[in-house]
């Protein structure tokens, strides 16, 4: 029964991961990461139901908090570099090569 949810979460996670790896726009990459976090939440809640204990749901709360904090900081950073570069493409970020 709960397997479907797990599969879904796995899919979401995979999609997010793929997105991080292939997409070029920092914001999109960043959203993919958030997608991965939410996939984790789904998995947590599903497992919580499987095990019949609430830990999973509780964790989901904390994950949301952390995700929120990450969003705040991440957007701050990306906006910062965007204002300097006028572009949010991670490919343009190539100063750090040896």
């Amino acid at each position, binding site marked *: 029964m709960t397997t479907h949810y797990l599969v879904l979460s796995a899919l979401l996670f995979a999609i997010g991961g793929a997105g991080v790896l292939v997409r070029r726009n920092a914001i999109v990459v960043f959203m993919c990461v958030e997608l991965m976090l939410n996939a984790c939440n789904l998995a947590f809640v599903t497992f919580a139901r499987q095990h019949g204990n609430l830990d999973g749901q509780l964790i989901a*709360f904390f994950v*949301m*908090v952390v995700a*929120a904090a990450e*969003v*705040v900081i991440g*957007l701050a950073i990306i*906006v910062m570099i965007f204002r300097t570069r006028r572009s949010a493409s991670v490919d343009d970020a190539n100063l750090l090569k040896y």
Partner: protein
Amino acid sequence: MELYAPILVLAVLAAGFAIFSVTIAPFTGPRRWNRAKLDAYECGIEPTPQPVGGGRFPLKYMITAMLFIVFDIEIIFLYPWAVAFDQLGMFGLVEMVLFIVTVLVAYAYVWRRKGLDWD
């Protein structure tokens, strides 16, 4: 699950109605073609071209969104605490005071940094 089923029923009704009326809208009314009607309305002046994706808008809104997230999270924690307050007792009070004070500190910081000013 049973608790949620009725909501679903209502959702079907509402969605059905909304979609229906949105879709029939073009057909109920008459058609009188006119270039001006197809432009976005800007009090009669030539509409300013909008970049694809809506272009960029003031950072201010983003900051508001961020603040909203932060406080919404705080609320997430306040509700369970409030519900279970009687069982948690002193512990709950102390911890929540610490929590709220912390949030208030951040809040004061934002305030002083003009994070809350719109001009």
